[in-house]
């Protein structure tokens, strides 16, 4: 521990603490621009300069470590002049026009810094050399005129996401942000995660969807959980007048710490499907609007008679729905109606074993974040569960090893130290067991993690081969479990058979999920189909009863991610009057069928 005096306050901090962090500990805020709590200090903007007694010049507090008995002053005439000078330099370096910028008026850290210094003007003109605007990317526009070269985006793209797409070209006054080696962003290796937009302090990085839709003081913030996949990233959903404005990663979220992938951040913004606005029942060949009571009556009548007549029911639920809904679904269809199939809409839960449970080594995403070797089996985590790939990729420069084992080419191959491919996955895993380089890597590893999903999780041969290898090398196993409540589905034993022939009735608790054409076609021959859905689709068009349901943004509920961690989702938007909460719909159906079901999902998941 070292002792340091800042603005006459004496405090003790661990060795290696920067002056900036020591000041924060003493309750003193030093203005910064390029600094960010999640990123390594850069020391580029020079706004954080402070006076250190004994030093010849002002020192950057964000990069300077404290030394014992250091005396620091953060406020005096010299420092105030220096800050104004730094800001004047930054403003005149490029072309900063506040009047028409989307972050002007409170959301711009540069503008706020100048206001904090009481600057009504500065002595220099803008650059007047026009800088380019890169609008080639579907989600992100780079306005180079507003860039202050703080490198937060570059550091985030590398240190947090591990993609290393962004960088700076040239030097001095010619320095410029670039993607890859100077490619337009839309043609580069950018994966569209949007972390750069979230960290940018100025209006240089523009989010096409949300620009001008509302300043931070004009929007409402809702903390909730993403239901895009089983990582369960913590979100900060911004809404205005009951409209979705922007989705940001919650920096305080323990799972993702502010990171999101394009599926979590941008895909929901492009929602164009039409809502189901009223319950509908098929009468005289066509779907007609009906009341909830009518619809429930038809369902109870049909499902009840099918079940009593020992005919076959197939039931499906989306893993985007909360545990509350899944628990009601399980009790109704699996436990009570004894449906032939009670499973998830999309996914591979056929006979999936609780492999990880059998193995006994609980694995968390923290293990992935600290792994010195990751073996990714059977899944392309640059497409699904992308945030997991961030945790792996960002550690590669520090020496973490990566091995990919899959049926076909995958997005991690370029990063992998060993890449094994085989049309038959089980054989690929066996190849891994005999690949000398891979064996050497795994043997040397202290924190080995096997991340597996897809076919690897459902095929007996694959899981056996993986289990053997994991035991041999003391590897931790992490099943990615596909959809948001994929693990919940497995714990509720919502497995299925493949045979959908001879089904007399089908119930699809779809929620807001998108179904494939193949799935819709499978149900075409079923005489009675009920679909509980937020949106109109070919599936609802062919159904016999359609029930309007809330979307993920409109409901409260719990989710269990791939680690088995519970998180809560809270509604950010109010749903249309005529639609109903997914859990309530199922509860009402149970009531109409005269079933006694419990709401205690916590007990059920013990």
């Amino acid at each position, binding site marked *: 521990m070292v002792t340091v005096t800042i603005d006459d306050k004496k405090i003790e901090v661990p060795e290696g603490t920067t002056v900036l962090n020591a000041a924060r500990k003493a309750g003193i805020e030093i203005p910064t621009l390029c600094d960010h709590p999640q990123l390594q200090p850069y020391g580029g903007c020079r706004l954080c300069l402070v006076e250190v007694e004994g030093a010849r010049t002002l020192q950057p507090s964000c990069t300077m470590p404290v030394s014992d008995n250091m005396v620091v002053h953060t406020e005096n005439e010299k420092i105030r002049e220096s800050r104004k000078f730094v800001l004047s330099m930054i403003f005149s370096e490029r072309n900063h026009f506040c009047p028409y910028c989307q972050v002007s008026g409170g959301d711009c850290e540069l503008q706020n810094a100048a206001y904090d210094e009481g600057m009504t003007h500065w002595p220099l*003109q803008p650059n007047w050399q026009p800088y380019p605007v890169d609008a080639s990317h579907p989600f992100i526009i780079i306005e180079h005129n507003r860039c202050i070269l703080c490198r937060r985006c570059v550091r985030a793209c590398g240190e947090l996401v591990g993609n290393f797409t962004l960088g700076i070209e040239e030097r001095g006054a010619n320095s410029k942000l670039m993607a890859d080696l100077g490619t337009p962003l839309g043609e580069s290796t950018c994966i569209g995660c949007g972390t750069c937009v979230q960290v940018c302090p100025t209006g240089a990085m523009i989010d096409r969807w949300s620009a001008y839709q509302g300043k931070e003081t004009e929007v409402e913030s809702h903390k909730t959980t993403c239901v895009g996949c089983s990582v369960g990233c913590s979100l900060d959903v911004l809404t205005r007048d009951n409209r979705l404005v922007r989705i940001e990663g919650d920096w305080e979220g323990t799972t993702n710490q502010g990171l999101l992938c394009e599926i979590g951040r941008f895909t929901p913004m492009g929602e164009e499907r039409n809502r189901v606005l009223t319950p509908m029942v098929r009468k005289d060949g066509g779907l007609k609007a009906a009341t909830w009571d009518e619809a429930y009556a038809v369902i109870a009548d049909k499902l009840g008679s099918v079940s009593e007549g020992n005919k076959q029911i197939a039931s499906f639920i989306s893993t985007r729905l909360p545990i509350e809904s899944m628990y009601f679904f399980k009790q109704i269809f699996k436990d009570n109606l004894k449906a032939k199939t009670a499973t998830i809409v999309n996914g591979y839960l056929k006979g999936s074993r609780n492999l990880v449970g059998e193995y006994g080594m609980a694995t968390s995403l923290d293990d992935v974040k600290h792994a010195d070797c990751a073996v990714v089996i059977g899944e392309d985590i640059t497409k699904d569960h992308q945030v997991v790939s961030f945790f792996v990729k960002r550690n590669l420069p520090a020496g973490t090893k990566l091995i990919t084992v899959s049926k076909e080419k995958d997005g991690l191959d370029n990063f992998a130290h060993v890449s094994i491919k085989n049309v038959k996955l089980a054989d690929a895993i066996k190849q891994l067991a005999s690949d000398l380089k891979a064996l050497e890597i795994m043997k040397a590893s202290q924190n080995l993690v096997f991340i597996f999903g897809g076919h690897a999780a459902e095929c007996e041969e694959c899981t056996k081969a993986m289990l053997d290898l994991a035991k041999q090398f003391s590897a931790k196993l992490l099943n990615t479990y596909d959809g948001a409540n994929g693990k919940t589905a497995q714990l509720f034993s919502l497995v299925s058979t493949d045979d959908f022939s001879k089904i007399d009735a089908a119930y699809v608790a779809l929620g807001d999920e998108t179904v494939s054409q193949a799935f819709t076609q499978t149900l075409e021959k079923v005489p009675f189909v009920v679909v509980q859905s937020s949106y109109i689709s070919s599936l609802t068009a062919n159904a016999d009863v359609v029930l309007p349901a809330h979307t993920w943004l409109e409901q409260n509920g719990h989710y269990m991610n791939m680690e088995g961690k519970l998180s809560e989702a809270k509604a950010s938007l109010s749903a249309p009057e005529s639609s109903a909460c997914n859990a309530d719909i199922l509860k009402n159906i149970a009531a109409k069928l005269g079933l006694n079901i419990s709401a205690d999902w916590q007990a059920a998941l013990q």
Partner: protein
Amino acid sequence: MAKPKVASDWLCGCAGCHMSFLDIDERIVKLIELVDLRSTPVTDLKHPDASGVDVGILEGGINNTANEEVAKLMRKRSKILIALGDCAVFGGVPAMRNFFTIEESLQRAYIDTESTDSEGQIPSSPELAKMTRVRAIHEVVPVDIYIPGCPPDADIIFYALSELAQGRMPNLTEEKIMWN
């Protein structure tokens, strides 16, 4: 003691700042009890008194030689000069033509405009002022008080003028600065 004299003029601006000044509404009655409003573009007198005024206010940036002369005149005749609005303080919207050459700007304005139905002609009378790079006022004459904004809020203008009327220099901080 005589009331302090105030004069204003506009240069390369849109008159919005003067409109915002007028947005002080009925407070103008109180204001002219405290100050002697001399020349402004919206009142009868158009030029600052030759004997000088206490406070000169300029809206708009410097876009040609005529603006330069007006600015210099106002500076000469004012004890305190205020640059009112983003154009006066920074150059503002008109300053964006600095991205182009003066020739390109004239060509676009007089020849290439979509609504020009005949040949179009760039005015070239020798009596016209010569265009220059668009500049903030402080690049031509020293300025004492900067009130940024596009336009600055009427409340801010009223605050500044009433402070001056009571013999104090206005202190623009926090929410009174709004060059966004």
